[in-house]
């Protein structure tokens, strides 16, 4: 048997390396999964879910549909590289089978086919395949050109900050940039010598042969192409291009129902490696409004991957979830950050002994509990309105935190203190259970999320007051009075993206005021900037974020900015550009409008005295 030429070695060794590396590392990650997650894989692997995963892989990993939606040029660039390369491999193989007329072809003969197959295909099919290979290569090269331009452009004009490159990234990037031009040149030169080219490579080859001694260039160019491929494979594990193989694994696992846990495990590592560092999260992040440009998810994941995350960066995030909505890979960015926060603060969780030692106040028997939340106590207008509305609807309720109550625990969870939060949760849960209530109405979205997700109290419905008031209204227990006030509704992060409550507040508000639809709403809504999840941000920076959001709202010329969170209200109220009211206040005011003025005064007086 004739030995193949030595230029195939870099490629072949690189391929062997990367394949075995991937098998090992993915194996390790999967072995680190919890027992439940492992059984999820086994149960789901032979179901429709695998097909769904294949479909998703095709749509996202190859076509990059989500990037396309967000930014068509960026989408095209990614698609041309990923899908183009994928097709080159697939079509290349088909061409090789067709050419060699066998299925057992060494892989190098497929990849470097134009070197080995020195005569032109004579069949129509063969000609068409060769032509499509040339066109596909052109397609990929257009992506490469765009990539050159993007990098050049961002540097020259200092536009959007793309991720800083590390050595591994640089090598892989350089290799990637060279792979396709070298391939094109090598194929063209071979075509110039052997006349085995197609519609693009052959004219290019002829052109080159017309003034260059192409024989001298042939071997070095094929060497160069092989080296570029080999280098790329070797650099892959230490570069961001690891996302190409890992993302596929991630898509499959995700389809099997695996999620980021509250500890760093194999799946969170897989998610971390799945980040392509496309930088879309930089665009969605409001922290840039305060000139904070180094703490965004893409950087967090990079630092997590390198295990070099500082508290300064880890905690300088509002956890608003905007990046998560926009992430084309669909990474669980908030969960990943919280997981690391748990890790970073593990050593100093509080035990809150005093809650256990102290006498727990006796819970009265009730059907409905109202829990205002710590923050709501700093916005007494919300409490006053809620009291008025309860009275209006003749609801008997227990105001659980009227005097003193442990915090709901969510602020602790946001900064990773899950263990500590559990102590508060246990304490509150005990009190709620003792009351025998069926419904827990909460005014603060921060509390709402934790009550709903982490309290796990059987037989109790947790509702944010916007849901609850909507229900009361729908049942005819609250009068309706549509005022002609123009309202922009600001979705609180924890209620909207955090808990998926977008429609209820709008349906409710619609009955009492005129709600204006705006660009940045629902999933795309802004964060007010007041988030408790960020412990590092300075007040002045919060103000900048808030003002940017406020400027946007002001453009719609509303009479009132409505929100459903005491913290959002308090944050926006500092701006003074617009009057800010909680949804409950607006409903309460609208209902008061319907009453004769004397009665109204009396009622207001009564409620004021109570507060």
């Amino acid at each position: 048997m004739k030995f193949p030429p030595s230029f195939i070695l870099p490629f072949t060794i690189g391929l062997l390396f990367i394949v075995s590396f991937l098998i090992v590392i993915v194996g390790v990650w999967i072995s680190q999964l919890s027992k439940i997650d492992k059984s999820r894989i086994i149960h789901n692997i032979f179901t429709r879910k695998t097909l769904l995963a294949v479909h998703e892989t095709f749509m996202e990993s190859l076509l990059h549909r989500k990037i396309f939606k967000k930014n068509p040029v960026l989408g095209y660039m990614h698609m041309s590289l990923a899908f183009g390369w994928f097709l080159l491999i697939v079509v290349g193989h088909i061409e090789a089978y067709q050419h060699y007329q066998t299925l057992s072809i060494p892989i190098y003969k497929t990849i470097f086919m134009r070197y080995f197959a020195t005569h032109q295909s004579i069949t129509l099919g063969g000609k068409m395949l060769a032509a499509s290979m040339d066109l596909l290569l052109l397609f990929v090269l257009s992506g490469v050109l765009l990539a050159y331009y993007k990098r050049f452009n961002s540097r020259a004009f200092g536009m959007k900050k793309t991720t800083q490159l590390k050595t591994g990234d640089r090598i892989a990037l350089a290799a990637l940039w060279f792979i396709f031009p070298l391939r094109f040149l090598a194929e063209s030169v071979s075509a110039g010598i052997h006349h085995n080219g197609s519609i693009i490579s052959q004219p290019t080859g002829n052109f080159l042969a017309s003034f260059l001694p192409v024989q001298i260039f042939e071997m070095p160019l094929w060497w160069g192409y092989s080296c570029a491929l080999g280098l790329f494979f070797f650099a892959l594990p230490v570069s961001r291009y690891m996302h190409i193989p890992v993302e596929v694994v991630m898509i499959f696992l995700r389809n099997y129902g695996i999620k980021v846990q509250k500890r760093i495990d194999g799946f969170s590592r897989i998610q971390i490696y799945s980040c392509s560092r496309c930088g879309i999260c930089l665009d969605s992040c409001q922290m840039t409004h305060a000139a904070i440009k180094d703490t965004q998810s893409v950087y967090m994941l990079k630092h997590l991957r390198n295990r070099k995350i500082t508290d300064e960066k880890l905690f300088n995030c509002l956890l608003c979830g905007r990046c998560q909505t926009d992430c084309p890979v669909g990474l669980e960015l908030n969960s990943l950050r919280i997981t690391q926060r748990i890790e970073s603060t593990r050593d100093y969780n509080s035990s809150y002994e005093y809650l256990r030692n102290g006498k727990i106040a006796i819970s009265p028997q009730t059907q409905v509990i109202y829990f205002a939340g710590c923050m709501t106590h700093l916005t007494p207008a919300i409490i006053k309105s809620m009291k008025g509305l309860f009275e209006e609807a003749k609801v008997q309720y227990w105001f659980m935190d009227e005097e003193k109550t442990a915090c709901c625990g969510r602020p602790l969870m946001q900064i990773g203190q899950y263990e500590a939060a559990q102590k508060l949760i246990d304490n509150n849960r005990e009190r709620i259970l003792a009351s025998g209530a069926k419904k827990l109405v909460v005014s603060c979205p921060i509390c709402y999320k934790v009550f709903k997700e982490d309290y796990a109290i059987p037989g109790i419905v947790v509702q944010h007051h916007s849901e609850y008031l909507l229900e009361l209204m729908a049942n005819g227990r609250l009068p309706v009075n549509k005022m002609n006030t123009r309202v922009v509704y600001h979705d609180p992060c924890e209620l909207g993206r955090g808990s998926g409550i977008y429609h209820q507040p709008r349906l409710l508000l619609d009955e009492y005021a005129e709600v204006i639809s705006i660009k940045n709403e629902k999933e795309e809504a802004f964060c007010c900037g007041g988030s408790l999840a960020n412990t590092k941000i300075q007040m002045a920076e919060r103000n900048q974020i808030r003002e940017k959001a406020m400027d946007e709202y002001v453009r719609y010329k509303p009479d009132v900015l409505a929100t459903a969170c005491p913290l959002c209200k308090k944050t926006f109220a500092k701006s003074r550009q617009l009057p800010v009211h909680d949804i409950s206040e607006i409903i309460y005011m609208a209902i008061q409008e319907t009453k004769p003025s004397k009665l109204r005064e009396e009622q207001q007086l009564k409620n004021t005295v109570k507060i």
Partner: protein
Amino acid sequence: MKNFGFTVIKQRTIDYDQFDGRLLNEILENEPSFKVCLSCGGCTATCSAGDLVSFNIRRMNLMLRRGETSELENEIQKCMLCGKCQLVCPRGINLRNVIMLIKKNVVKYKSLSK
């Protein structure tokens, strides 16, 4: 040593010259807004934990500034991080970060001093 039925009483005086400022400096470096505390006590008045247990966040500042860090570790545990203090603070001090820094570093310096 003889026992006379009484002992020399420890001084209640804060001896500033014995001040160990490492913990304070670490916190001020990481959260400079803490410098501008006015000792107004708004934080303590609004404190959710303070409703349930004797807990004075204003005093934490003083304890740090006087190097009285021995009780700090236990005291700071009481905070529930609800963030009300931060909303009330007239000087906009990033108190939750201060508390987290104290929690983190109090342990570190305790082990260092051993």
